[in-house]
């Protein structure tokens, strides 16, 4: 028998982090259907920072612009909205490690056993950015990351990447690994998540987004697909300018 109190506590936790589809039902003699989607997407809007403080946001915008620097044809991480994307992600379920297995004991294992850290991405960024700020200021006469030159910024990031610098209360390389995962995600995920602004990441490589039907094109070998990308929100030029 399950201990009812343990179970209730556990299931409440489970419910809290799930979608609307969590209530049990009995289904018979029909295919359940509702007139509206039961899984509609969550859309991130531009606007104030939701997770980062103003200082953190300045550092993050500088970081994402070094991970993906601007060039003549394509904006960098900052103008593509990668910091906004990460801000929204950290405020959401990803930032809280929601849905992941969080029961103890937490024991450090071998590499192939995967992350065994109780630190959530939100904590990792908060502490990682604080450490980065501290290290930059100590070594650069009080200047934070955002105030360094691009070359200086690159060399700071390289010391973190290579493990030559250590953070006080959080794994420096773990922080860098998270950046290497999260920044490109912000550059390439659908603009509804707050990054890939104006689909710049997709335009850069020629990815058409969610066009969903290539039957006319599967047989056209070695020909460049000519149409511009479409996002879940459509395309800016589909809606006449309001201003």
């Amino acid at each position, binding site marked *: 028998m*399950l201990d009812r109190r343990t*179970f209730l506590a*556990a*299931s409440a936790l*489970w*419910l809290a*982090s*799930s979608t609307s*589809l*969590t*209530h*049990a039902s*009995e*289904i*018979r*003699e*029909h*295919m*359940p*259907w509702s007139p*509206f*989607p039961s*899984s*509609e997407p969550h859309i991130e809007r531009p606007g104030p920072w939701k997770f980062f403080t103003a200082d953190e946001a300045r550092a993050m915008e500088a970081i994402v612009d*070094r*991970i*993906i620097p601007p*060039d003549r044809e394509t904006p960098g991480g900052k103008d593509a909205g990668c910091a906004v994307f990460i801000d929204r992600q950290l405020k959401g379920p990803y930032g809280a490690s929601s849905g*992941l*297995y*969080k*029961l103890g*004991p937490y024991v450090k294992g*071998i590499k*192939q*056993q995967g*992350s*065994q850290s109780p630190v959530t991405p939100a904590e990792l960024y908060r502490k990682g950015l604080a450490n980065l700020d501290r290290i930059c200021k100590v070594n650069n006469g009080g200047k934070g990351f955002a105030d360094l030159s691009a070359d200086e910024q690159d060399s700071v990031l390289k010391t973190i990447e290579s493990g030559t610098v250590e953070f006080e209360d959080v794994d420096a390389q773990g922080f860098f690994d998270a950046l*290497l995962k999260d920044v*490109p*995600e912000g550059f*390439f*995920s*659908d603009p509804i998540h707050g990054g890939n602004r104006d689909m710049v990441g997709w335009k*850069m*490589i*020629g*990815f*058409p987004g*969610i*066009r*969903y039907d*290539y039957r006319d*094109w*599967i047989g056209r*070998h*070695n*020909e*460049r*697909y000519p149409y511009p990308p479409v996002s879940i929100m459509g395309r800016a030029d589909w809606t006449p300018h309001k201003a």
Partner: protein
Amino acid sequence: MSRKLPAKDVVIVGLGWTGSIMAYELADAGLDVIAIERGPWRNTATDYPPGYAADELRYRIRHDLFLRPEQTTFTFRNKMNQTALPIRSWGAFMPPNGVGGGGVHWNAETWRFLPSDFVARTHLVNRYGADFLPKDMTIQDWGITYDDLEPHYDRFEYLCGTSGQAGNVNGQIIEGGNPFEGPRSRPYPNPPQQQPFGATLFAKAARELGYKPFPQPSGNMSQPYRNPLGVRLGPCTYCGFCEWFGCGNYSKATPQTTILPALLRKQNFSLRDNSEVTRINLDASGKRATGVTFVDTDGNEWEQPADLVILSAYTIFNVQLLLLSGIGEPYDPIADTGTVGRNFTHQTISDVTSFFDPAKFVFNPFIASGAIGMCIDEFNGDNFDHGPHGFVGGGYMGQVQTNGRPIETTPVPPGTPAWGAEWKKAVKENYQSALKPGTGVHGSMYSYRDVYVDLDPTYKDRFGRPLARMTIDFHDNELKQNKFLTDKFAEIFKAMGAKQIKKEYRKGPYDITKYQTTHLCGGAIMGTVPGNSTLNRYLQSWDVPNLFVTGASAFPQNPGYNPTGTVAALAYWTADAIRSKYLKNPGRLIDA
């Protein structure tokens, strides 16, 4: 306290691919059937409409359609002398959740195993001698033959509308198909899907090297299709959001698009979703199942009595439920006793990414389906002489173009920095002219004495029940196999004119963070006698004859193909045995 529900003839645990097949077949036989499914109801039109189904971050990166580890997970270690730790976020495989199970978001690569795969041990010992096999390798024959299964493979393919080119119809070899396949009684129900540029080049180069390439058999429709249950599927649009995603076009064969509409019309079938079975209940003798206990997401505990229990919760959940319910003897790798948890296997996959001249090659990688591509089978199973190579097993390999989604598929040549201007430039330059097959080398993993599943001594699920513990590592045989196959595969890309080739051999130790496939196999295997298996050849429990266990948990080892064709064929075979034999005379179908 649990509340007791009215008794049913049959209770089905898990409504994925095999649960759906069993439910339909047994309801069709007139039995009163209830299915209990851990995850939610999923419906094509409202759960993954084309307007937003193509969201790479949500479905591929954040695993929206999958089980949350918080609900339940496993622990993992490589070796018996290590401490297993929990899988806190998914990596090496990705357990499904919800009505339709893995069928909702599979690629639909729909294969049959080779006739020799079913008699692996006998076949290999006859050809190479017993000493050729590693001492601790525990492969065995299945207790069933390809010929037994052929009609059931055929049923599944016609249910799904599988698109493919037959290579062997009733013994006659057909040009353009897989010449190594076992004889099929008729061609595939649909012609193969169209092939993109990369696959076409691959096939040409393979042919020039003397191989016989053929289209990957696909459960994505090459044309509109109406299946024998009257359910209709539409043509695949090559949208490139297939594996990990639900198909909003009704073009991928899933339980939703092939069986459930017909099943839910039957008045003697009902389903409870968001309800997790926590135990199979036994009577005082321990030899008879009385039904199951489950807990719904509102926290209510229920008991569902039934005369017949079908466990179809997917490989490792099947094994876990058997262990938690005290059914069968748990496997002890040291004493080599017991069977439940034994012969657990996964897969040996490797990647080859090749880079072509961007001025000359445009592959449009985003024009893709979960299962288009051209494959060769020369190095699968025992299709080649293993004598000189010192390993057994193999796999198919192919240029299978599953996606050009940019978070996952932006390959850069070896030596490129991981970030910065150079990385950005390399991503841009190579996106259209690199080939990164969805599944490159799809290699087998054979079974070993020290690879198994049991219950973890420390870690618990949210109910306080022990998690299942996986002890798994690669053995030399598989690493040798992978090296050999990966090199052969890369030669084909070289012949296609690639200017740079990146080979990523599968290396030990087995790493729980690196996705291979969700083809976990074994742990509740079928076999010829109770001493070597948990189930008899009809997937009936040797210990509890009114319990049948479907799924790849029955595979004594994992051959070199995707499992679902065989998993589904075995479900039809089992359903047939229940309908034609068991119902007339409920009890053991084979004397122990």
